[in-house]
């Protein structure tokens, strides 16, 4: 964090819930009294493209964009996407990464290679990396759509406001619109929070 501004970059692929996660972070920060800006470039994202959502909050935020080397937190919903955006992370920043691998058709077709060990590459750069299989946790809880809440739980102890605030923001949102899913999302948040503490040093990603 610099100049009292927190910069969070959420990255993944269209359809993974990247923009929703960023929206929840932005709304929660707004409720905490911060000035907030959130932006993304996702024009054709629904068609399998890269999505990056920038969330900035502090006493006064001008530009919505996070510059290279300026992100305090990088939340990667997919392993190679986290690696793609590594240059945006501060050397002292934290990367919270879902180990999921989603190779695109151009990789499947043999035109490009998927990085052999994106998590290892992230860790080798010197940033603090926390990587875990959010999909596996979601499956254990019985709903693959919980990945979003799990990832938010995982970063909840790395924010300038308390994890409880973020959790309440998510759970209340579900209580208002999808009450049946409130409890399971609370569980998912806690499971993610626990997973987010395990630090990756010489991690080898699951294949």
């Amino acid at each position, binding site marked *: 964090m610099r100049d009292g501004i927190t910069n969070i970059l959420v990255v993944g692929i269209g359809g993974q819930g990247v923009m929703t996660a960023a929206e929840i972070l932005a709304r929660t920060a707004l409720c905490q009294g911060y000035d907030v800006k959130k932006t993304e470039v996702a024009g054709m994202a629904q068609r399998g493209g890269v999505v990056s959502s920038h969330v900035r909050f502090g006493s006064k935020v001008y530009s*919505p964009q996070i510059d290279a080397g300026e992100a305090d937190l990088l939340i990667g919903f997919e392993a190679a996407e986290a690696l793609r955006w590594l240059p945006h992370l501060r050397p002292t920043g934290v990367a919270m990464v879902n180990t999921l691998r989603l190779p695109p058709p151009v990789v499947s077709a043999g035109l490009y290679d998927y990085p052999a060990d994106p998590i290892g590459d992230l860790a080798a750069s010197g940033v603090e990396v926390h990587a875990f299989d959010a999909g596996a946790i979601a499956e254990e809880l019985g709903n693959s759509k919980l990945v979003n809440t799990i990832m938010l739980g995982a970063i909840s102890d790395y924010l300038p406001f308390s994890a409880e605030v973020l959790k309440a923001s998510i759970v209340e949102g579900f209580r208002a619109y999808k009450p049946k899913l409130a409890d399971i999302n609370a569980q998912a948040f806690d499971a993610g929070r626990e997973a987010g503490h395990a630090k990756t040093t010489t991690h080898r990603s699951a294949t």
Partner: protein
Amino acid sequence: MNAVVQAKAESRHLLSGNEAVARAAWEAGVRVAAAYPGTPATEILENIALYPDIYSEWSVNEKVAVEVAIGASLAGSRALAAMKHVGMNVASDAFMTQSLAGVVGGLVIVVADDVGLSSSQNEQDSRYWGRFGHMPILEPADSQEAYEMVKRAFDLSEEYEVPVIVRMTTRVCHVKAMVEFDGERTERRAAGFQKNPQRWVMTPANAKPRLPLMHERDRKFRELSETIDLNIAFPGGDRRIGFVTAGPAFMHVRETFPNAPVLKLGFSCPPPLDKIRAFAGQVDTLVVVEETELLLETEIRAAGIAVRGKDVLPRFGELAPSVLRPAIKPLLGEPWEVPKRAQASVFPRPPTMCASCPHLGPYFALSHIRNLNIIGDIGCYTLGAGHPWNALDTCTCMGASLSMAHGMDKGRGESDEKKHIVAVIGDSTFLHMGMQGLLNMIYNRGNVTVLLLDNRSVGMTGGQENPGTGEDLHGLPAPRVDFAKLVEGLGVRPERIRMVDPYELPTIVKLVREETKMEEPSVIITNRPCSLTDRFERLQPYAVIDDQCTGCGNCIDLGCPAIFVARRETVTAKSGKSKELVFARIDANTCTGCHMCVETCAPEAIVQPQPQNRVIRIQPHA
């Protein structure tokens, strides 16, 4: 109902620029709003549609949208038209004359420039239209300003009887930021159309006397620009460089040079040249930071004020802090080196068509037929130019496919002699501006095979409604155009109008082959809905029986993102030639059970693991 729609004055909300425009339109008492979808402006009308006090519609194109707004304005209603930058080109015929005649009810055109081309075929600067059409331009820098300036624009429009342009960019439209509401809806009475032929019938005799009035209006706006509170000087301690800027570039300047004086132009056309001159006198060097053309810079220089700008800044793209720093720092004698970072080498992830996309079938066909020149259009099907189809040869603008194909047919060169000319266009684009091209081709005895890909949706912008979907902007039932009857009415012979289920690959390949051989225009119309819309029904996923897969790779050629290469093997054929076999697998999470790939698989290796409990396939639309 939506929380923002119900929100009271003095409440705070996290809103995109587009949502802020919608709320402002409602508060301003807008009674009619019209648009055609286009990134990054689409959500303006989608959000206006949430307010029941406003009549809102998807018009068939931007020119129609502006004309609808003009008509409402002449009846005394406040009206708004929204569009992306290229939509202004289409709409310009209407507003270029209406700015001469003027307006009655406030008329605001909100235009969204896709600076940086996140989802557009070009980058263009809509601020030219203000100069060209003698209309003032307001440029919000964030959501709060979008909210305030749209309301202000309506007041100005009525006071000066002129359409007002609100120029947004992607970085205002799609950025969410805090907006504090200061009001609720003010209902405005519409007096009704007051007949006045000298004012509203723009014949040469009536238009000519309007010209001096228009120039007098320009003079008033030049005066207003000097005093209006939207053009604000922010003092700064470091006077080595003073910035003149507008729109989101203002935010980037403040972020990058927090101690520099800044003159922010919220009312940027016409610019306040005296104010700029006075500001320039207080700083060592004046720098204009504007996206994207050097418009203000040229006008300031023409006024005899020394100014820097595009000599150091890029002439296209966003002027984000990462761009400003290396460009401006050297002017301060502070060389700035872009920090060297190990750039991770990661594969590209280009946008692709979706699983069970009804465009996959036609492109499978086009990629398997030789000797075609394939003239494309604007929509998801533009992706047909990419891997693995490589079956689209041009893309220019909305509706261009049919007319360009006709021109290519008439202007055939040496290498085209044995080629067949094909035009590919979607339902919404056809209705937007494609119909005229078909009519023209018929009238002039052209010979083009048209693929009209009717997926009942404006796909690329997120599945909006159009006259071909049977629903309106509000999701209510609406008359649905009959494409077969329409093209027959334009003059295509009934024998040459072929309806086809795009999932039936052998049929569509055969049809395209047949029709391209004809010596007259034909139209092949597909009939499956976009797989991202509610009209699409998801069925049980398929799987590849590995033992039965022969590695032919036919299913991979379909380009479905649910089909992956499981493994590759190189074998030696009897002829001694080595051949690569590509074995497929289907991702069960992505597959929607459309069965298209089954049609490519001779050894019948693609099956549904659990038998379907219903023996139906997704039904094509009537």
